[in-house]
């Protein structure tokens, strides 16, 4: 292609600049926005190395070096919360990531257009129910006395347990409820991507005698490959962020040891001493650095595996 030849040729740099100068002009407002709303506040990250006082302000607050980080690493509860976050996020990624893709593929295979539209519309409804309400429903569902789940267990001759109070069940409950809540919504982006798969490719596959599954596997999936790659990379970067609201509503003292995430830990520690901005910023910075590493890593792997698909 002409592209690779141009890229290797330094002399054409000026040519490319000349050709693309309007692009930079278009980009200018976007870059200005990023500078004002993202990069200017970023100086505030220094409070991770300070004992931040609201009254003194960011600049005048005293430096404490790495004290905030030491405090985090010294706390067994924090390290435990890191572990929990990684496990819950890992499970979310393992199950929560592929399921919307599979759902979108199956949805795409549905014959009846009206039925398909209804399913799709309904499937994203849970996205709009807040965790505090969803949590109340999960509680009702799993309550051994009055819950539907308990009734089923009882009908099968078992005796229902208090599932929300058993630590072994906590993470599955979190992962399953997150899938339930976000599956339909996450599938929207794949549905949109599927519409841009070239119809001619399906025709060609059909002519070649490819069946439904073969077309799904060889045409649809590769067609949305780049969106899948992007989604995966971005999700891996967010691996240390588990929905705070969800944990907050589902956790209790019985499941704290397996359920407390980083954000929940920071909330719990900050609760007693007005606002622990410095500690929160320090933990946020840690999450960011790890997230950056993971994004760079997955991006590199993705580019190798998919012939150049990545965020950059």
């Amino acid at each position, binding site marked *: 292609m002409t*592209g690779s030849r*141009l890229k290797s040729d330094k002399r054409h740099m000026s040519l*490319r600049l000349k*050709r*693309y100068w309007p*692009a*930079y002009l*278009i*980009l200018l*407002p*976007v870059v200005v*926005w*990023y500078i*004002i*709303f*993202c*990069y*200017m*506040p970023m100086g505030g*990250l220094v409070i991770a190395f300070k004992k931040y006082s609201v009254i003194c302000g*960011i600049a005048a607050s005293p430096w404490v070096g790495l004290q905030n980080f030491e405090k985090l690493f010294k706390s067994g509860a924090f390290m435990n919360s890191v572990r929990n976050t990684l496990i819950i996020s890992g499970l979310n990624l393992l199950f929560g990531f592929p399921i919307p893709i599979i*759902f979108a593929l*199956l949805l795409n*295979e*549905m014959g*009846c257009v009206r*039925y398909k539209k209804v*399913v*799709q*519309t*309904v499937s994203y*409804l*849970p996205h*709009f*129910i807040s965790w505090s309400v969803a949590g109340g*429903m999960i509680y*009702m569902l799993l309550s051994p006395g009055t*819950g*539907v789940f308990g009734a089923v267990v009882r009908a099968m001759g078992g005796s229902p347990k208090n599932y929300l109070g058993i630590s072994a069940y906590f993470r599955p409950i979190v992962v399953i409820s997150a899938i*339930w809540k976000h599956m*339909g919504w996450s599938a929207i*982006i794949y549905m*949109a*991507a599927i*519409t*841009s798969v*070239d*119809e001619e*490719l399906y025709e060609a596959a059909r002519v070649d005698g490819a*069946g*439904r599954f073969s077309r799904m596997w060889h045409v649809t999936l590769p067609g949305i490959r780049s969106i899948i790659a*992007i989604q995966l990379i*971005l999700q891996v970067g967010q691996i240390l962020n588990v929905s705070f609201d969800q944990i907050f509503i589902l956790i209790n003292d019985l499941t704290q040891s397996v359920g407390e995430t980083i954000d929940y830990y920071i909330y719990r520690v900050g609760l007693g001493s007005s606002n622990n901005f410095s500690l929160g*910023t320090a933990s946020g*910075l840690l999450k*960011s650095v790890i*997230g950056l590493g993971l*994004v760079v890593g997955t991006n590199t792997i993705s580019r190798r595996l998919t012939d150049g698909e990545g*965020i*950059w």
Partner: protein
Amino acid sequence: MKIRRTPGERVFDWFNNIFMLLILVVMLYPFWYVFVGSFSSVGHLIKNGFVLWPDGFHLDAYQQVFRNSLVPTAYVNTLIVTAGGTLISMVLTIMGAYVLSLRQLPGRTGITLFFVFTMLFNGGLVPTYLVVVQLGMIDHLWALILPGAINTYNLILMRNFFQSVPEALYEAASIDGETMLGYVFHILLPLSGAAIATIALFYAVAYWNDYFKSLIYIRSNRLWPMQTVLRQVLQTAQMNTLMYDDSAESVAPETLKDAMIMVTVVPILVVYPFVQKYFVKGVMVGSLKG
């Protein structure tokens, strides 16, 4: 088009349809429950737990929401912020995404990293607030729009959609005398209906649901959006049922929470079919190539 199906495919269709029915029930029931709850009496919900039908047609919860004198202005504010915000967001996102989709653009990787970096690192609450203060946006609806105008995640997704449009189209267009902006408006955007509809939906829902920005940037309640007013309704209900308890141990009626969800979700439900319209196959790149 009707194509003959193999027996295996027919079995698959059957299973798929039944599976989707299952999904339909699992996804719909909670919402149905909220819907029923909003029209039920609290006693009905307490007594029966999982209910299938309301016990009559109680409008108390809705009355409690709409009795709040701020509701009309709040709806207007939310509409302004959602419509205006989505427009601004889409313009900025499309501009950024289009430029990043140009594979030959010098400095492309650097600019992408410049954007992506902000997804992982942000200055936090206080410094962002100080910037908004310095811009003089406190107590203006602008404060609800501009600080969150670009979502980098959406921008990257949009870029990917644009990348699937061949750059050759631009070359052809520029030979025809189209400028870059002209190409974006006349060729690229019409080709990216599904992507634009999806990303616009993402932005609109984010603006619609946001309450935190108004909590910290808006002081006068006539500028409050819907979500903030609904929070006030809920908190007031907690106070009223307690009358003098001033504690965190407060309880608001379930029916009120349900009605509030309905008030927020129904407008989005109304909008969604318009978005779905764009998820139609066949109008895309392929058909244009020939």
